[in-house]
């Protein structure tokens, strides 16, 4: 069949607010998918290719790659949740999340990891997810890796900063991980976080969404789902609004009647939609168990220019210390990243005025190495009086893991030849030699609004498991309380997984889509 189906060469056919003239849409479908990111797009395709009529509703804008500017600030404003300003309640963790057609897959750095066997075992033992074994999930990983061109970076897919970091890791005998990314023919522009203008990144925008559309799926952008509707404990559709993203004015109301509802709005919005709907929360766990992998970047300054401006956004990582220890406290990942001035310019504050200017004058001499924390699921997402709140602060035990990671990070950068390593507190601390590492890092205390954390990986909030009293979603991806209501995004994850969760979501979405298709032939 598939060889006879036409795929558009470029772009998607998307209904956007600007083109809508009617004020009311009453639609019917076999399945309505809420969200068009990693989970939603895969579900849309997997359902559509079995002949189901699928409607995809995306709250964010449609930004075709041809319109991407390679200007990070512009992308933050148009393609990220809250214009890039989404944060925890304290305001000290920026939680970056895509809010556009294709979701976070459009603006992430494409790094992929299979879910470690450790978690499948843990989830089986602790949450009754005995169906999710490495053996069962391996074919799903293989499928999404093939479909999304997930491959290890070639030797050429690197960056000047990554090469220095490799030297530092070699000098300190820390094993180097080579990134796997869903990128085809990477042009190494370094603009992953602004979207891939030439469609090298195999995001949902150029893969599963056009494939779903080729099988008849309809995509609506600027369309925010308000509630999921149900009858006698069975989901039967949604209510939504089409909102002009510029004026913020409502353009049209929408209802979609569909016997299958797939929730994939992401770990912040998915629980909020359930809260607004008053559904699926007999466990009281909707919005709970939030984790986000808070990260801190150390900035290394070298004596000579490095010019770490272009290249593969991610090239090397260290996962030697990622999995939880015997006490269950998670570790960390180190990850290089190309960061441009608009992202990195506010991360360090060596002192107001001249000290800051002196650092930024040498920006070409600097590189950054991220410490990404494998945190515990201690937060929650709430929604009251129309306001979402992400209640999350870094746990004390997790902060100690962060400090362990910062030490390895600093030693790596010193091993790479850095003259100075800047530690991003509200007034940066500086490491200039091995002797400084322990005293400086040990002096850090777990304090609110002290560190400029960034999170790229919100997760949890609709935990999956066998026990309806402790979890929201059953092992097949359907909510315990509401039949035919499925969840396929990172909110499913019962625990933080330490690694970038994209491929886990890809594979789970494919797995759950198969279960949906088995139940709805």
């Amino acid at each position, binding site marked *: 069949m598939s060889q006879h189906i036409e795929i558009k060469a*470029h772009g998607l056919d998307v209904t956007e607010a600007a083109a809508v003239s009617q004020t009311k849409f009453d639609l019917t479908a076999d399945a309505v998918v809420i969200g068009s990111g990693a989970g939603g797009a895969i579900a849309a395709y997997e359902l559509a290719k079995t002949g189901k009529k699928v409607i995809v509703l995306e709250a964010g804008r449609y930004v075709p790659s041809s319109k991407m500017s390679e200007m990070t600030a512009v992308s933050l404003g148009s393609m990220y949740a809250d214009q890039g300003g989404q944060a925890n*309640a304290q305001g000290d963790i920026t939680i970056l999340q895509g809010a556009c057609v294709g979701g976070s897959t459009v603006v992430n750095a494409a790094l992929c990891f299979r879910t470690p066997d450790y978690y499948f075992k843990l989830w089986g033992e602790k949450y009754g997810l005995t169906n999710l074994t490495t053996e069962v999930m391996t074919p799903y990983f293989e499928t999404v890796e093939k479909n999304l061109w997930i491959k290890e970076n070639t030797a050429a897919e690197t960056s000047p900063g990554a090469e220095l970091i490799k030297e530092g890791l070699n000098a300190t005998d820390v094993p180097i991980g080579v990134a796997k990314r869903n990128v085809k023919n990477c042009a190494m522009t370094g603009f992953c976080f602004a979207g891939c203008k030439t469609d090298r990144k195999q995001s949902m925008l150029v893969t599963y969404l056009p494939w779903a559309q080729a099988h008849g799926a309809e995509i609506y952008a600027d369309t925010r789902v308000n509630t999921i509707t149900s009858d006698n404990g069975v989901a039967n559709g949604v209510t939504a609004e089409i909102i002009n993203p510029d004026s913020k004015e409502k353009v049209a109301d929408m209802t979609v009647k569909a016997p299958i509802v797939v929730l994939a709005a992401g770990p912040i919005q998915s629980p909020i939609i359930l809260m607004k709907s008053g559904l699926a929360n007999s466990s009281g766990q909707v919005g709970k168990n939030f984790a986000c992998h808070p990260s801190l970047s150390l900035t290394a300054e070298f004596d000579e220019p490095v010019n770490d401006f272009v290249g593969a956004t991610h090239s090397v990582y260290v996962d030697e210390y990622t999995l939880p220890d015997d006490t269950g406290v998670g570790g960390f990942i180190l990850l290089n990243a190309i960061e441009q001035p608009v992202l990195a310019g506010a991360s360090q504050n060596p002192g107001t*005025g001249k000290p800051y200017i002196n650092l930024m*004058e040498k920006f070409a001499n600097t590189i950054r190495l991220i410490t990404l924390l494998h945190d515990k699921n201690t937060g929650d997402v709430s929604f009251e009086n129309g*306001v979402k709140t992400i209640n999350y602060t870094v746990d004390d035990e997790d902060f100690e893991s962060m400090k362990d990671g910062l030490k390895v990070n600093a030693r790596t950068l010193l091993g790479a030849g850095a003259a100075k390593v800047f530690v991003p507190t509200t007034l940066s601390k500086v490491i200039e030699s091995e002797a400084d590492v322990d005293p400086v890092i040990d002096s850090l205390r777990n304090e609110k609004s002290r560190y400029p954390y960034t999170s790229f990986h919100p997760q949890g909030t609709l935990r999956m498991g066998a026990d309806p009293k402790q979890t929201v979603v059953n092992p097949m991806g359907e909510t315990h309380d509401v039949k035919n209501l499925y969840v396929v995004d990172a909110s499913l994850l019962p625990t933080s997984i330490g690694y970038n969760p994209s491929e886990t979501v890809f594979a789970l979405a494919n797995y759950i889509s198969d279960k949906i298709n088995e139940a709805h032939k």
Partner: protein
Amino acid sequence: MKSRGTHFDDVTNHISSLTRRDFLRVSAVAAALTATGLASVAPSAALAQVPDEIQHMSTDEYAVWHRLMLALLPTKGTTLVDPETLPVLQTVDGAFLATLPPPVLTGLKGGVAYFNEAATEPFGKPFIDLNAQQASQYCDALASSEEVPARALFTALKFLTVTAYWAIPPTWEPVGFQGPVSEVWGLESQGNAPLPQA
């Protein structure tokens, strides 16, 4: 710490006492904090002319933002671009303040007023009237404060100002960043991927 001058401890202590006042926490771009009961920013000296594009700052608030920009980005004598030649505060206004929900914007305005007025006790004058050394001391004191609201407020204001500066393309060349490259490099779009084969 000694190098920051004799006022440093005074400033820190003063901030500590003031920040125990009625700050309300709000979810914001960073942490927008409001001090209830504080007057709006009082007209004072050194008011800069407000550009026409500014829509979400009062004249008095603009003066605070402008003074903060100069304190954070003293580029004179360096290779970096003078922020006064760039639409930095127009960017803060249009790209950040314009996107804030009204309650959050109100909170941030309260924070700006507080930020200005809180300098009065240690220095005898509001922030907008501080000289360069005093302004740096004051900002560093806020940044290193033991009080969460003080450092949250400063961090938020600094983040918005500095990020707006680096978002403006002319700031890039002096640090070696070339900006967008795909068109310069003549890269062609690969377009949509073909359907997966069974």
